[in-house]
């Protein structure tokens, strides 16, 4: 503790340089905190226990549809309370940059399955009745300035209309809102009739993208998921039933191995950080050779000088790193909300521990070479400026 003023005096000797280095370290660890939270969210082992909504999709691939005929078999599985289905339409509104998820669904059972999508009763009835009707979330309606009664044309990317038209046109009959603020991301989607979609498409009639299953007892979800999949084992359409959250994450995982991507980015960031901080430390020690020689003259042992320089590097890394992790911890809830709660990103204890471990490792890596140089300093030569 008594050496702390000496340590901070060394760091404050060139305030701008120290501040810039601290900012670099903080930025690197803020990035680490956020990316590691994403990595953990993607890699955390998921269990369906306690979750009463399951998704049954093709075992082969998410883009592989399932026969409509599977509906009755899934419904008859013991423990299943309700079943609905949806497909991926992939329509584009005016410009590809306006992308938003749009799903054909079975209206009645889908709205029953998702009570968190709150729709006025009159609009709900209108949606159920009108074959070309569609409903959108409040956020999406506000974004494009849509109101009930508007016609929304979507250009298909997968399913051309069988009448040869270049667009599918929908009548906006309702605007729903999320029941809870953390689900606001669900307000960025559009839902329309699966029947209208199935009758109008050129290919794939009689199939659905996935089934959504509500179980009677959430604690039995694992068993029910296995029972559903067992029914289709060795069939032409084998299934994979998982929790809704797992299903959403597997959607995101299609872009690649998130863990590998995150690790590669972090490796590049930390490699750069080691070079940057290492260079700063080396330069700082070079400039302070006479001062270190004075400390040795006064009686500081070689070991004490080594530890002082090492401590300087560690303090720099720990201070900057912790600032970065705190910034990440503050930013993650915002990111989580932006993902409509689909990504459960938060700074977990293991991320803090890994972060502190990295700070210590990088601190030792960048501090050791200049510390060894300082330790081996010959007093007489250093005082003479040789």
């Amino acid at each position, binding site marked *: 503790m*008594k*050496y702390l*003023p*000496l340590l901070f*005096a*060394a760091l*404050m*000797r060139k305030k701008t340089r120290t501040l810039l280095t601290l900012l670099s370290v903080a930025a690197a660890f803020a990035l680490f905190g956020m990316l590691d939270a994403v990595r953990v969210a993607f890699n955390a082992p998921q269990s369906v226990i306690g979750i009463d909504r399951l998704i049954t999709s093709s075992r082969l691939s998410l883009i592989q549809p399932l026969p409509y005929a599977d509906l009755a078999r899934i419904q008859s599985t013991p423990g299943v309370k309700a079943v609905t289905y949806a497909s991926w339409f992939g329509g584009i509104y005016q410009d590809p940059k306006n992308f938003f998820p749009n799903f054909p669904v079975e209206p009645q059972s889908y709205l029953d399955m998702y009570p968190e999508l709150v729709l006025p009763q009159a609009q709900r009835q209108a949606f159920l009745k009108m074959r070309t009707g569609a409903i959108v979330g409040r956020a999406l309606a506000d974004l494009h300035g849509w109101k009930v009664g508007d016609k929304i044309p979507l250009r298909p990317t997968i399913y051309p209309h069988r009448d040869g038209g270049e667009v599918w046109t929908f009548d906006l009959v309702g605007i729903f809102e999320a029941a809870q603020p953390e689900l606001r991301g669900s307000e960025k989607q559009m839902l329309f009739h699966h029947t209208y979609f199935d009758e109008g498409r050129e290919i794939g009639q009689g199939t659905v993208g996935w089934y959504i299953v509500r179980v009677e007892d959430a604690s039995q979800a694992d068993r029910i998921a296995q029972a559903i999949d067992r029914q289709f084992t060795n069939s032409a359409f084998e299934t994979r039933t998982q929790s809704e959250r797992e299903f959403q994450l597997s959607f995101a995982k299609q872009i690649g191995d998130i863990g590998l991507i995150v690790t590669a980015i972090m490796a590049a960031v930390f490699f750069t950080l080691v070079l940057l901080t290492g260079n700063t430390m080396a330069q700082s020690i070079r400039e302070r050779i*006479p*001062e270190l020689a*004075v*400390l*040795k*003259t*006064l*009686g*500081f*042992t*070689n*070991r004490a000088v080594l530890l002082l320089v090492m401590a300087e590097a560690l303090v720099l890394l720990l201070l900057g790193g912790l600032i970065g992790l705190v910034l990440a911890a503050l930013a993650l809830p915002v990111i989580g909300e932006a993902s409509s709660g689909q990504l459960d990103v938060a700074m977990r204890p293991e991320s803090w521990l890994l972060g502190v471990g990295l700070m210590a490792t990088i601190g030792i890596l960048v501090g050791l070479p200049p510390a060894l140089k300082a330790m081996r300093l010959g*007093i*007489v030569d250093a*005082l003479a400026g040789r």
Partner: protein
Amino acid sequence: MSEMPPTPEPLVAIRGVSKVYERGRQRIEVLHHVDLDIPEGDFLALMGPSGSGKSTLLNMIAGLDLPTEGSLSVAGHRIDRMSSTELARWRAANVGFVFQFYNLLPALSAQKNVELPLLLTRLSAARRRRNAAIALDLVGLADRASHKPNELSGGQQQRVAIARAIVSDPTLLVCDEPTGDLDRHSAEEVLTLLQRLNREYGKTMIMVTHDPKAAEFARRVLHLDKGILVEQAEIGA
């Protein structure tokens, strides 16, 4: 000048000390079989031309360098036989240093600079602060305790360096050209202060200087030439 009391054992005993530096294939003998006794309470000025070996001799007496040959005892301790760690601890306890260019740490206040040697002791923070304040008061800079070195004149910085040298009450004070970077007036202030520390507080001092006027403040002057002691003079004797 007051008479030196006779001492049975010299504080510093140098016997047959030689120092050889090797630069590549070149072998340079800087000191050649030097014998010297420095009694406790002495104020010795070492003079000589550049390269005569006076700074090398001072560095060895202070435990910063080791002789190639011969023995070197300070207060009965054979410092030529000590390891680098033992020497560091010995320096911390026994030697105060005053350099030509003050060598204060620029980021620390005068008070913190003076406290530096005390960090190596077991004194409490309060005690360290108090001792540093006493040392600064002794050199007449109590009112400049919170100033950084760049806020002080050269003479004031050298007085802070002297306060740092004496704060741990060392056996020996070594000064390497302490007035070499000062104007005449500041130099006289510093030399008067060193003389006072010797006469009033009995500090044993060894000072390397080029300046004959500075040497007049010492009790004794030794001349070195090409690594050999050539002349010894008692001031006022």
